[in-house]
């Protein structure tokens, strides 16, 4: 905060201290800034821990390496799921919520004390659950399906973590209220804030479901409740488990819009369309928790078809819209920036050397092509019979939550470091390559796990040779190849992830201070125009001419339709059943 005058503002009778952002002119509440920093740092630490676990898991599933013994494998897999899926993602999302409310709305953060309480509860909860897992008596996978039982602290930690996250969501909503009352902005909230609001709303349902199921389960583990119905547990647990992934989708789409705005000056093609797409998420996305219950006995096909399709694919419609409007906004902006030749000059001349842009665009493409298509296919009621609980499932969600969300968050970090932490990114030469390395590794993990899953290989499985089993079964040798390639990709992804951690932590410790003079440069290479100009500009682009985007969308749609029907063909080859 040395870089700009900091002053205390008395707003609404409460003193909040602000600094002025040299890049955007926004007033940044220092309390919000500290919270963003704390949550982002915690997120990165858990990514490091969870990422190491992920590598160990992948190396164990590589038959030629088979690193860990069985009990350690299941322990580490449980920890991997928890640390990356819950802790890394949700801590980072808290940072995004505070950024999208206090910073973007030019407002003080509501109740920073409660936000700190949220942070501490999440931290204590996360650590408690980790300890329970590492003690070895809670290797139940992060899904902890009853009647398999973990130690009480496993559930207690998750409950504390969830309560903390809920408080964080309330702080976000409170900040929206304050900003409106104190008129720190005019008209409607920015689109990115609206995306964050979408994430927050989904988070509230998520956490409520978690509380409804985890509190009784905790009491059951303590012996106060004798029985938890296995099917009810799963229904409600996935209300949390899957919806939490939808928080990610809403959050990373908001992050795409934000990065596109900062790096190339993109503005939404249509506020109406983009916001309606988010509304589709709010209304329908959470129904897809049914994806995990498609081959469960005891729930009707009507319920399955309706819920797994997000009420006739209306939430998919939302994603398909964002999938066009984000590249469309980038193309429009790049054309305004002067790259008007042919269908793709705007894309070729995009700032590919800027890790924020590269990470964002890779996240967009991989999420759509790998994660989105595989997700819709996997979530088709009858096709799920082919894939449920095979490695196809982790293959799919590493494309969504790692190539999509994680990569988007990594990309955002390259902007958060200079803008919030006020540090220049160290090792820019390596940082430039980080998103590519990670993206290639993760694409490999996703594709090869999906490949192995298509061959029937089970997820969460220590030994596909069944060497200790009474009977034997041989998977096709291609399955072994897939798992080997998966192991190699995991090493690449781990190097890419490790590089991210080194760069982030290194920049925090040793990065050059960012000042008003070098802030634009610190944001990385950009197309011609300057960021402060780009960020502030609205201006109607006039009529759009987006041939490149239309071609991309057409290629995507063709791939989607073909892959979808190929899988129906596989279903029709199965033994008749009913």
């Amino acid at each position, binding site marked *: 905060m040395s870089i700009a005058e900091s002053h205390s503002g008395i707003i609404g009778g409460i003193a909040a201290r602000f600094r002025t952002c040299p890049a955007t002119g926004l007033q940044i509440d220092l309390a919000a800034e500290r919270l963003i920093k704390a949550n982002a740092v915690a997120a990165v630490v858990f990514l490091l821990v969870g990422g190491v676990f992920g590598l160990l898991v992948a190396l164990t599933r590589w038959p030629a390496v088979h690193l860990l013994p069985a009990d350690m494998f299941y322990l580490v897999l449980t920890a991997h799921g928890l640390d990356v899926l819950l802790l890394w993602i949700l801590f980072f999302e808290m940072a995004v919520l505070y950024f999208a409310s206090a910073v973007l709305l030019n407002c003080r953060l509501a109740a920073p004390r409660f936000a700190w309480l949220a942070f501490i509860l999440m931290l204590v909860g996360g650590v408690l659950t980790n300890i329970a897992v590492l003690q070895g008596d809670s290797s139940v996978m992060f899904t902890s399906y009853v009647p398999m039982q973990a130690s009480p602290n496993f559930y207690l930690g998750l409950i504390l973590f969830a309560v903390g996250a809920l408080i964080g969501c309330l702080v976000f*909503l409170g900040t*929206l209220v304050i900003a409106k009352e104190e008129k720190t*902005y*005019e*008209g*409607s*909230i920015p689109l990115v804030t*609206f995306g964050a*609001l*979408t994430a927050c*709303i*989904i988070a*509230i*349902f998520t956490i*409520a*479901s978690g509380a409804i199921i985890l509190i009784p389960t905790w009491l059951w583990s303590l012996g106060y409740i004798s029985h938890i*119905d296995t*099917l*009810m547990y799963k*229904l*409600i647990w996935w*209300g949390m488990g899957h*919806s939490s992934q939808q928080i990610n989708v809403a959050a990373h789409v908001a992050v795409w819009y934000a990065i596109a705005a900062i790096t190339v000056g993109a503005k939404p093609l249509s506020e109406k369309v983009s*916001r*309606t797409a988010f*509304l589709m998420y*709010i*209304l*329908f996305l*959470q*129904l897809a*928790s*049914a994806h995990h*219950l498609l081959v469960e006995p*005891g*729930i*009707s096909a009507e*319920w399955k078809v*309706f*819920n797994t399709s997000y*009420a006739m694919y209306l939430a998919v419609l939302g994603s398909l819209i964002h999938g066009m409007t984000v590249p469309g906004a980038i193309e429009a902006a790049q054309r305004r920036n002067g790259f008007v030749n042919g269908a793709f000059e705007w894309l070729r001349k995009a700032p590919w050397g800027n890790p924020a842009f590269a990470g964002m665009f890779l996240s967009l493409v991989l999420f759509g092509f790998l994660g989105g298509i595989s997700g819709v296919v996997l979530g088709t009621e009858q096709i799920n019979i082919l894939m449920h609980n095979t490695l196809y499932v982790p293959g799919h969600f590493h494309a969504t939550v790692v190539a999509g969300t994680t990569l988007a968050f990594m990309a955002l970090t390259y902007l958060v470091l200079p803008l919030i932490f006020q540090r220049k990114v160290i090792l820019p030469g390596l940082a430039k390559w980080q998103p590519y390395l990670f993206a290639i590794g993760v694409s490999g993990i996703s594709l090869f796990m999906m490949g192995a899953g298509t061959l029937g290989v089970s997820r969460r499985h220590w030994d596909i040779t069944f060497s200790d089993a009474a009977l034997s079964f041989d998977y096709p040798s291609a399955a072994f190849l897939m798992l080997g390639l998966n192991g190699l990709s995991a090493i690449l992804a781990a190097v890419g992830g490790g590089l991210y951690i080194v760069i982030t932590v290194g920049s925090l410790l040793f990065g050059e201070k960012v000042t008003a003079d070098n802030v634009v440069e610190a944001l990385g290479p950009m197309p011609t125009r300057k960021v402060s100009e780009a960020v502030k500009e609205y201006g109607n682009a006039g009529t759009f001419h987006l041939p490149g985007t239309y071609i991309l969308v057409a290629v995507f749609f063709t791939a989607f339709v073909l892959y979808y029907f190929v899988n129906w063909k596989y279903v029709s080859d199965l033994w008749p059943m009913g």
Partner: protein
Amino acid sequence: MATKTKEPEAASERIPPMQRLLDNPFLLLFLGVTMPTVLYLMWGLMEITQIPIAE
């Protein structure tokens, strides 16, 4: 945004209903929680509690 001219108070009256919905976080919160609670959770629980008992 600072350069915007002040619009008359009555302008807020003319904001289309859909935009008003999208500008209202708490209404959205209500919808976003109610939809999955009813369609996913309650419908699902109803089915699970109605599974017949084997003879």
